[in-house]
């Protein structure tokens, strides 16, 4: 599924559409975002070298790690460094982001620094001005792929570093302008989510079409404190973790996927999730209060219910309420005192109702409660 993301980036943007944008998030509990970034970068570079992708080059905006690091990275992955200036340009915002070094060198304070020069890297000294940065990126891209129909990938090493220098709205402006640029095929960036405000993170998620967040495999339970409990978790989390992917599809649906990863000598390795998938049932739709199925217990209980009209006839005489409210209390008395009335009832046995109204002024049926027939 990490492969799926790389393929989506490789396929790039359709005509007239914004370029797909990937946010790679991590946090202190699972600080492997940069490894995921390297993985995506090397995958894309191999696609580009093999000419299987929409884009023909990568412009890497390096804020947190210098161009030499990336040279080493590409060498270790087996990419030919010599020919790398055909498909990659590095905009070096790491060595001298605010131009202080060059100012100091001009004034003679420090000795002239000879950086390991590489043909692919160009120094950028003004990270506070994002308009110029946009211009620099697009110029580098045009250098790589020419002015016509060629497209290039933009990789930003760490948007967190950018946010140190400028506001979220200018960063968001830069990213959205890159997305809508005709020659950008896709872009991806790294973000450390726990050092920014939620508003900034929400804004970056708004701008991206795919999000990968690296999370630890197990989170320590809140109630437990003390190092003795945390150490096993830490160890486990340092060796691997999970990535959760949110994929915004073109038809407007969101696909959620997860995978596990582990850190090895050669880098990062992804495996499909082994443990039980935790499905979080989101209630988007109203819950309806119908339940048409009966559980076993409910079925038994239903069989046990005796219906109201079934009560009578268990040996007792069937008594039909005849409008006199004091039935139960006067029961012993009835047998002695109102013998005549009872006799008439008894004589007829069943089916005769003699009803004595309290008064003739009352509306008919006002003192009758049909529910009194029920023997519940």
């Amino acid at each position, binding site marked *: 599924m990490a492969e799926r993301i790389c393929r989506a980036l490789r396929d790039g943007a359709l005509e007239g559409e914004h370029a797909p944008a990937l946010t790679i998030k991590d946090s202190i509990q699972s600080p492997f975002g940069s490894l995921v970034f390297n993985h995506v970068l090397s995958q894309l570079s191999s696609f580009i070298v093999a000419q299987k992708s929409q884009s023909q080059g990568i412009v890497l905006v390096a804020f947190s790690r210098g161009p030499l690091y990336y040279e080493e990275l590409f060498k270790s992955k087996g990419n030919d460094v010599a020919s790398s200036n055909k498909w990659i340009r590095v905009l070096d915002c790491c060595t001298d982001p605010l131009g202080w070094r060059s100012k100091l060198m001009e004034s003679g304070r420090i000795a002239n620094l000879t950086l390991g020069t590489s043909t692919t890297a160009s120094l950028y000294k003004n990270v506070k001005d994002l308009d110029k940065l946009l211009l620099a990126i697009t110029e580098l891209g045009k250098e790589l792929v020419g002015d016509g129909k060629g497209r290039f990938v933009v990789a930003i090493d760490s948007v967190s570093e950018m946010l140190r220098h400028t506001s979220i709205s200018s960063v968001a402006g830069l990213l959205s302008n890159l997305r809508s640029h005709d020659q950008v095929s896709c872009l991806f960036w790294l973000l450390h989510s726990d050092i920014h405000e939620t508003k900034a993170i929400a804004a970056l998620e708004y701008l991206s079409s795919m999000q990968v967040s690296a999370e630890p495999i197990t989170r320590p339970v809140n109630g437990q404190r003390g190092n003795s409990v945390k150490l096993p978790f830490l160890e486990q989390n340092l060796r691997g973790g999970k990535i959760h992917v949110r994929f915004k599809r073109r038809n407007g649906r969101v696909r959620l996927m997860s995978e596990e990863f582990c850190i090895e000598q050669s880098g990062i390795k992804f495996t499909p999730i082994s443990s039980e998938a935790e499905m979080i049932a989101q209630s988007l739709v*109203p819950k309806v209060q119908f339940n048409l199925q009966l559980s076993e217990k409910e079925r038994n209980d239903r069989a046990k219910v005796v219906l109201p009209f079934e009560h009578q006839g268990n040996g007792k005489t069937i008594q039909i309420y005849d409008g006199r409210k004091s039935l139960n209390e006067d029961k012993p008395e009835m047998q002695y005192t109102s013998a005549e009335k009872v006799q008439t009832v008894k004589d007829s046995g069943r089916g005769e109702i003699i009803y004595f109204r309290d008064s003739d002024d009352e509306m008919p049926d006002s003192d009758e409660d049909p529910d009194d027939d029920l023997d519940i």
Partner: protein
Amino acid sequence: MAGNKPRGSSFSRNFSATSNTISQIPGLKHGPNGTMFLSSGIPDLDKILGGGFTLGSLVMVMEDPEAPHHMLLIRNFMSQGLVHKQPLLYASPAKDPRGFLGTLPSPMFSKDEKSRDRDAEQEKGLRIAWQYKKYFGEQNSELLRDGKSEYCNDFDLRKPLERHFYSGQQTDCISLQDSADLTTFHDRCSSFLSQTPRNDRNITCAGRIAIQSLSAPQCDFSDKECDMLSFIRSLKSTIRSSNAVAVITFPPSLVSPAFSKRLQHLADTLVSVKAIPDEDKELAKLLTGYQDMVGLLSVHKVARINTQVPTILEATTFSMKLRKRRSLILECLNQAPVDGSTGSSYASSSSCSGSSKTGAIDF
């Protein structure tokens, strides 16, 4: 209950000579309480709202950051205005908003759709009780229409709108990224609205304003919430005194909850869209027709101008589907009965009847 038709009162407006001119203007129709409607571009949404968007009202759409469904609403709204030759002002945070006009859908003409014919045929088999025949008659007159003078067109999302619709002077596009604050934009809106003032004389045409993603992060003013609020407040008051409708979309997840609540209260008609997860087995069991759905639309508030009586809808959540991948339809949610022991309800009610578009006759 007469479904989504406006509830008639004992008094009815006496439409005299002026009424002829109104019915001749395409795209406008009379509503209850002396208001007038213009179409949203989506026939189902017009039915749900009781006729369309009220002239002089502010419509707000709450976006979902994970899905572009608000674009469907804006596109249909703008296309409808262009087809009816109504002046249009469009603002978005993109650097080149004119490019968006090329993605607007084109209207489908009646020979393409069979559904309306089907409805008419079904009704022939019904025997209507005499006292309800008067409602039936009104419905019929809405159905019989030609392509050009239809109040609400069905739009084909796959076919782009022809250039001649939007290349005129009446269409204006503004980029929200350019201005550091909202004053210039506000001035542009005011001058646009002065083209369609409301006065006692007959109205000639209605205007439309579409603002997409007002508080998008790339705009410089997106953290100046007071400025945005005062802009919207003054826009609302200007709109009230003009014959126009403004549709504004904003992402509530990117602004503070207090600001989002204030915007929701400022709106006359409030609608929100929501994304649905893909290949979710739980939802597939819960909802019939899940495969075709692209999202959910909820109507929270319906504009009631000149009246104190609120509109209470039968259902507030609808599923958005693309019929033949071309036109947007809204359907009531059809749910399988489930154990409802947990969970708060998202909407007040949902229809349990079989698949239904809001039917032609609702009693």
